[in-house]
């Protein structure tokens, strides 16, 4: 049933909306440019940059907004941007982010993420899984890979450090994304992730 305004007690608006979609894509693009350029200039010891694109996909999925197809498409678009900046074979992050978006959306009804610790915890676990998926897909694409002596531990370490970096950034990134979401969905009853 479609109505022009929500009646008291009726379900919340569930669409993502074109404006929010573009805003999330823009955020991902700007974050990738910033991470790539700053890492090149500041030359700090190689601590992996937080995977901001993964955080955006996770956030969008956890809001529970949009149909599965629209969330999957937005995840794929963000993953596509990630591929252009990560140096990975094109399609790797696209596929991983599309899957993550679907999983996060499926988990959104069972998972309530509130406060910085819970946000960091969920981001850490997700980043671990996401990193493992990226490594697995990379091995699949190359046909060879991290199965030799010392490779598995190096990959595991990279996944772990990257997940820590992403988890540390999540409590700062989620509130920004929440602001964007609230800007486009002003319904005061709308559930927010990470608040």
């Amino acid at each position, binding site marked *: *049933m*479609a*109505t022009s305004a929500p009646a008291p007690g*009726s*379900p919340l*608006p*569930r*669409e993502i909306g074109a404006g929010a979609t573009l805003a999330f894509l823009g955020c991902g*693009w700007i974050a*990738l*440019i*910033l991470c*790539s*350029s*700053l*890492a*090149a*200039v*500041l030359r700090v*010891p*190689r601590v*992996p940059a937080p995977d901001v*694109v993964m955080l955006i996909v996770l956030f969008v999925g956890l809001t529970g907004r949009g*149909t*599965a*197809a629209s969330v*999957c498409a937005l995840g*794929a678009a963000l993953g596509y941007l*990630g591929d*252009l*900046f*990560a*140096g*990975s*074979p*094109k*399609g790797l992050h*696209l*596929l991983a982010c*599309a*899957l993550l978006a*679907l999983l996060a959306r499926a988990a959104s009804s069972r998972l309530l993420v509130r406060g910085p610790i819970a946000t960091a915890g969920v981001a850490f676990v997700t980043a671990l899984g996401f*990193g493992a998926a*990226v*490594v697995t*897909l990379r091995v699949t694409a*190359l046909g*060879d*890979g*991290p199965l*030799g*002596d*010392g*490779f598995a531990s190096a*990959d*595991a370490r*990279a*996944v772990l*450090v*990257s997940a820590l970096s992403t988890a540390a950034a999540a409590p700062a990134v989620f509130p920004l994304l929440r602001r964007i979401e609230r800007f486009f969905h002003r319904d005061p009853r709308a559930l927010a992730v990470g608040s």
Partner: protein
Amino acid sequence: MAYATGAMPVSRRTRELVLVGVLLALAVLVFRANSRKPAQLSALDRVVLRASAPIQGALAGAVSGVAGAFRGYVYLVDVRRDNARLLDENRRLQLELARTRLADERATRLEELLHLRAELPSETVAARVIGVETSAHFRVIRVRLDRGAGEVKPGMVVLSPEGVVGRISRVFGGFCDVQLAVDPESAIDVMVVRSGARGVLKGKSGDDLFRAHIPEMVRGEDVREGDEIVTSGIGGFPPELPVGRVAKVAKPDAGLWQQVLVAPAVDFARLSEVLVLLAPPPPPDEGGARHGPEPSRGLRPPR
């Protein structure tokens, strides 16, 4: 405005499932297609990359300038305290000194590049690093070419005064992505200077120390820690370019191969300028373009 009303009609749910299936299938197809031809860029790729790269370049330049001036300022802060009377004068001098130092460092690097350029067999194009990879699982840098954008092609060799940097992986306008020699997808035919033992150098993924290794070197080959590794001249790289030094040799209890861990000659964390060798890239390896040349299995190159 439409709102969800609980149970979704079956037809709508089916349509949703089909859409998700199609999207995922498309994603898989894109991934499969591009893993075979990684250098190809679509029109959309070019638009996004051409829009992003100038911003990256401007951002890198701005941050570099501010960071350089700030470093110079902090470095001499004690001197300024001791000379309070000359505070204003000192500040001006400090900034000038910082700028001069940066210019001097850059001139030295460029001078080294010029020396290297004179020694190389073919023409080169200088490029400046404006970005690095955003994933912990790949090793790629983005560079801005000084000139000759139309001449640079994927597969061309990239060098620095210290040695081998990698290969061009993508070209878009005056910008390129360079796959570093320490990227897990990189493969470079190399040899040990002391003994002539040969193998294929590959990057070690997920390692923050920028290391590479030769995973399959014949067990009987003579290789020791500290040995110098250079290019063999096969696969598009000019011969005898420094690649690195042997950091560790691992001999499993059984098997035909020994593994050689290599510390690269190039400090990839501090890379700021590189040279692109305008020699034609090696012909594509049908069906195995991403895997580089086959390992020599220990054959020694002609002397």
